[in-house]
């Protein structure tokens, strides 16, 4: 169960996305989120899908890893699709009408769109950020992008540091959770049956040890950081410079073009495009 969670895991590599300036990646991410969420028409959806495919292709992340990252979300995906399929009340004749189930063509359309949108969101953000950006790069980027806020006394560095540590500990805590679950199962604990309340109660023997250990880890980490002369963000230098190369800007520009294209495509009907194409050729 928890073994399949790949969120927050970094896969070191040397692909185009790995080499892209993390700050630029953050900006592309913002554009990407916008374009996926606003894509409504078929053409817009196609463009956004193509862009997602492009991101996956240049990330160098193996397909197996991607499939694994989607696996835990299958239930959510299926649920959204089903809700959209059965509960969209469309115009015209329903496609299927059987006892209380009615499916309209717009329902199928909505389900497919929703499914693609969610999948794109998960895969796109994964390859753009978590799989190809080390947590430290990520926080450096966030710190850099938010640094104007330092002027109004927002603790940007502290926030970024907390985030990077949280990301660093995700795999450790997942492993630990699995160990505790196994240990309690070995004491005949039952997590799979009973009413909702009983099931929630059954989680106590997992949550308490996990919490205690997280606190202990935090204390030890604080000591270890202090031992390594950590003194807050002031006067810190960095091993890796965030240098943006021309290709990064090309990349950013391309993403902007795609976003604009999606906005435009939303306004066009599919039939209009066909006529447009015919007119051109």
């Amino acid at each position, binding site marked *: 169960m928890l073994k399949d969670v790949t969120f927050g895991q970094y896969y070191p590599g040397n692909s185009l996305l790995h080499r892209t300036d993390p700050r630029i990646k953050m900006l592309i991410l913002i554009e990407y989120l916008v374009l996926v969420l606003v894509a409504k028409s078929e053409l817009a959806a196609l463009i956004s899908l193509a862009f997602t495919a492009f991101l996956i292709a240049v990330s160098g992340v193996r397909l*197996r890893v991607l499939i694994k990252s989607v696996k835990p979300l299958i239930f959510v995906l299926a649920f959204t699709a089903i809700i959209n399929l059965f509960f969209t009340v469309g115009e015209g004749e329903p496609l299927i009408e059987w006892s209380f189930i009615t499916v309209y063509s717009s329902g199928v359309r909505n389900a497919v769109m929703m499914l693609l949108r969610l999948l794109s969101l998960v895969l796109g953000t994964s390859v753009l950020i978590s799989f190809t950006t080390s947590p430290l790069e990520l926080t450096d980027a966030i710190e850099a992008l938010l640094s104007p806020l330092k002027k109004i006394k927002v603790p940007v560095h502290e926030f970024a540091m907390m985030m990077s540590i949280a990301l660093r500990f995700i795999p450790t805590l997942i492993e630990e959770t699995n*160990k505790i679950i*196994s*240990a309690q*199962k*070995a*004491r*005949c604990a*039952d997590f799979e049956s009973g009413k909702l309340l009983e099931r929630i109660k059954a989680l106590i023997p997992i949550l308490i040890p996990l919490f205690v250990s997280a606190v202990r880890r935090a204390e030890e980490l604080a000591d270890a950081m202090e031992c390594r002369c950590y003194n807050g963000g002031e006067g810190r230098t960095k091993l890796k410079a965030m240098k943006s190369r021309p290709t990064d800007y090309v990349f950013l520009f391309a993403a902007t073009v795609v976003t604009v294209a999606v906005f435009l495509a939303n306004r066009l009907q599919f039939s209009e495009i066909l006529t447009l194409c015919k007119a051109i050729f």
Partner: protein
Amino acid sequence: MANALEIKNISVIYGEGTPFRKAALKNISTAFPQGEITGIIGHTGSGKSTLASLLNGLSKATEGEVLLFGENIWAKPKEMKKIRSRVGLVFQYPEYQLFDETVESDIAFGPKNIGLDAEEIKSRVRLAAEFCGLSEKELKRSPFELSGGQKRRAAIAGVLAMRPEIIVLDEPAAGLDPKGREEILSGLVEYKNRYGATLIIISHSMEDIAKYADRILVMKDGEIYMQGTVEEIFIQAERLFDAKLDLPQITKLFIELKKRGLCESTDVYTVGYAKKEIQKNITK
């Protein structure tokens, strides 16, 4: 003596059908005789811990079966709880599983899950605490106030309280000082003798294995590399070194003495026995 636990042609394979296929255990078979202590040794990643989690049905082998007194433990998957109460499994650093308000109620967690009545639970908790050297005063305290060694003992008591017929322990004494190791291991032996239980101890400490085990199972790369009595195993020093394992220091000494033609015995692995050997040698 009957076999308490038997494994037949067990394989555990991860990622079957993908290029990342990895066999953690490769078609292994062995038996654990009732009332004996079997020590499992092996390099990290040799498959020891994978094997341990199969024995109480916490995970299922890709192939092969686990027999508990001749019965397949997966015959009735719904009764897995019962299997787990009969085959106790103590993980590495078990103190990280403690959660309840008092040591007493934490130890009672297992027996409660089996559905025993309050009276029985109480007496079992007392007995388990006794085997693990925990006093009445410690039972009333919060497990989080105990010292490291006491926490470890409380966690082991939590498994003993289910009164398992077989106990599998993964490095029960890791990180403890010599006295702490001794207390925990001798408590387990006492439990074993009292209930005719079977112990399976995974350990990196050759000294502990030499001192407590009747039989040894050596794992290497997911296979059983050697198995036999302690003497049969320790006599083959070279093969142990091949499996990246060591020998107790005293055994190394006697192998050297034999090489120099000063001593005959090669079955020396405890200090007490070593002393007798030397004395025998000089009075000859």
